[in-house]
């Protein structure tokens, strides 16, 4: 009876997952068709709906293309960055992002996504490499120890093993740090219904969380900023009297710092909407 229940549950889960897979595919194809007929707004809506269910590099790449055509460069940059999270080695996406950032006149590149060896996606590579360096090296050192090899060779081998293992650990730590930073990274975007082409429109970082507050500095849509976090790991936020949510953000080097409205920010990693 129990096994029957568990089988039914598995069947239910499988059918549910296939249903959701069908719906995200359907929305994607609907979006491509809408784009083919020139209805870019419908295409964007379908892509956004699909992105609420699941993500793919092609989905975010296409969405970024459409936002670029609609001159919403912040959203375009944000979606290219999302696509690059899924396919970090996709050269086309890098090139499109480069062009979109250039068009948006973005000064700051934010997180150094070009740091190939220690980028956030490299954590697993470094974990496996460290594990291999450590254990294979340890076994080899043991072999040298028991087989009475020359002391100098022994010393060199131990040093090499320690250095490689250390490099691996450092790689893990550095790429994990970059990942933690990416979790805090947000892209400045213009709210729905406004264009932000040619960098003519800037967004203000205010001294206090309120519309009446003066601006510390400004950023252009597409620019990278980083959320300030509380000690419990949640972003520092404030809800103003008119119900608007504000977040405290800063640039990577910390020169720009201030409060921005939630609808002016897009987080690269989930949660999708702030």
């Amino acid at each position: 009876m129990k096994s029957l229940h568990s089988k039914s549950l598995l069947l239910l889960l499988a059918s549910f997952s296939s249903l959701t897979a069908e719906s995200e595919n359907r929305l994607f194809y609907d979006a491509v068709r809408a784009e083919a007929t020139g209805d870019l707004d419908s295409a964007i809506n379908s892509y956004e709906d699909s992105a609420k269910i699941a993500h793919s590099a092609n989905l975010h790449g296409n969405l970024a293309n459409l936002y670029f055509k609609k001159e919403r460069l912040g959203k375009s940059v944000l979606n290219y960055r999302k696509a690059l999270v899924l396919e970090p080695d996709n050269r086309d996406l890098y090139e499109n992002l480069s062009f979109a950032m250039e068009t948006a006149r973005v000064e700051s590149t934010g997180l150094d996504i070009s740091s190939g060896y220690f980028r956030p996606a490299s954590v697993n590579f470094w974990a496996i490499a460290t594990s291999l360096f450590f254990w294979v090296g340890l076994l080899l050192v043991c072999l040298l120890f028991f087989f009475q090899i020359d002391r100098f060779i022994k010393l060199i081998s131990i040093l090499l093993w320690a250095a490689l293992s250390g490099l691996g650990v450092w790689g893990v730590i550095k790429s994990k740090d970059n990942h933690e930073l990416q979790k805090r990274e947000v892209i400045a975007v213009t709210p729905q219904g406004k264009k932000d082409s040619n960098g003519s429109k800037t967004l203000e970082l205010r001294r206090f969380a309120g519309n009446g507050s003066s601006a510390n500095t400004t950023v252009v849509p597409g620019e990278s900023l980083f959320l300030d976090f509380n000690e419990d790991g949640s972003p520092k936020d404030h809800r103003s009297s008119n119900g608007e949510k504000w977040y405290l953000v800063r640039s990577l080097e910390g020169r720009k710092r201030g409060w921005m409205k939630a609808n002016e920010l897009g987080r690269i990693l989930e949660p999708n909407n702030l």
Partner: protein
Amino acid sequence: MFKTFEKFSHLPPAIQAKARTIGTGVLLTLLCLSHSTQLIGQNQQAIRAEAAFTPPSVSLGNNSIYKVIIYGTQALPTGKIPTVAGLAISNSPQAFRSASLINGVPSVKTELSFQVRPTKKGSFSLPSWVIEIGGNSVRVPAASLQVLTPSQQDLLLQEKEKQRQNDIKQAAFVEFETPRDFLFEGETIPATINLFLLNGLPVTRLPPPPKKIGDSFSMTEIRQRNIKRNFLRNGKSYTVFSWPVGLTAAMAGNQELSFEVAIQVRVKNNRSSPFNDPFLSDPFFGFGREQALIASSEKQTIEVRSLPMKGRPQDFQGAIGSFSSVSRLDADRVSLGDPVKLTVEISGTGNFAAIPAPGIKPSDKLKVGSPRFSFAGNEITKHEGMQSFEYILTPLTPGLIEVPPIEFSFFDPIQETFSSTITTAHPLRVDPGEKWTPGSPENIGPKNKDKQKEASTADLFQTESEPGRWTKTLEQNFLLDIPVFWYSQSIPLVCFCFFVFWGLTRRSGEKEKLRQKEATLTRQMKDSVGFNDPSSFLRAFRDLIRIRLASLRNHPNPSSLSSDELVALLHSGDNTEELISEIEDLLRSCDDQEFAGNELAKHPLDSLYQKGTKLLKNLR
């Protein structure tokens, strides 16, 4: 026997009386035991079998029972009943076990009853056969059955049963209609399945759709049900339920097809008179019981022909029917990389459910995505209507390009020939679109703008027509967060521990060997003093020096060390010059002894032994 009690006459009377009582009890117990033993002996009676037909003579059309009685066991036998031409014997007998006391003797038996239906008249004998019971073989004797010509009453009963079956058949039956007598393999035809229910038949619920019997045809899903009331057939009034379906022939040859459906009817509770027609009257006004009545159609043999090979086009993909095709392009001018929709519509009659999308010839100017299907028309039979295929085309080169015409081949079952329909070609102007300098991850950002301009240009923003691999979250799964990764580290850890253990064991084994060798050599030195054998003494001394020095200096191969190398090793340690020179002297004597003979014979060996022992002790 009572004399036995007289032996106790010298005892007091009370004790004598007690002894008599005990003796009587013992006697009675012995009697009971002997009787039980007799019973057990009778219980272990031989297993035997009897067989007979009950009744031994029947008229044709009636059944008899072939009964096998096995005495002396209640175990179920195994065996194969012989077959007799003219008698249909059931393979699943009813078994009945019983136990009883006959004249005070316990008896057990097993009865097996086989239903027997004679198919012709005559005298039949079921031959003797063997059954296996608990490893024993028991022979079942032969039995005979007389099958007589049916009596007048039997004939009347059979006639009545036939009439009843016919009535039931007329009360509920299935018919199906197809437009043609034959069809081609893969062809779809519309068909109608009709269920006729006689008015007055006490049907308790609406009948379900009929089931197809015959694997050579596939059928579309049955959805719509039409009802026609008071339909007259053979002077009787029926309610007719109709289901339109699409039938597709799957295999060539003469294929049988029929339909059946189980309908629920109410019958009388009285089952004692089975030949009363229970279906055609409802005397209990709804208080009877429900019973399933199978209504079936006659088996129809339909000829399914193979498609001819002659004249079959290369791009034929199995479409059978009569079709026409058109295509249209959503835009005639696009930017490079922007997708454009091409719709191909195939309309007519035929096997729409089996038509694959027509292929578009691949080209280096157009990327073609997988098409989307949609059907408009008779959704029930899928035989008539229009099938649309929507392709997403992505131009890959700028300029005026042509979307090629699409050819669609089909087989016309009426004309019995292959035909093709072709769409028109569409011109498409592709504008070059945006240009930009391809950057690399290293030169993203405005600071590298000048460097980028020097590089070659490429076309921007290609829309992908396929979604690619889906993931539920943008967050990566890290190996470090998965317990399996950490558990897997135990594998190399275990290997490492094993390796260390093996190495240490090996090392201690070598040390032990060395220690034993040293002890042997020390003993050899001592013995050679006793035997006054300077040659053996010096060899043992030199080997001891080698082993000690190799052990102290961690030399891998002590036996390869020459005298000069040994002296060099002595110098490398914390040894006095005096010790080194004394050892050197002895080593030279050893070499002299080895190469020049009995030079050392003049030295007393016992003093050399003491000196050698002392030198070995002080070796550093």
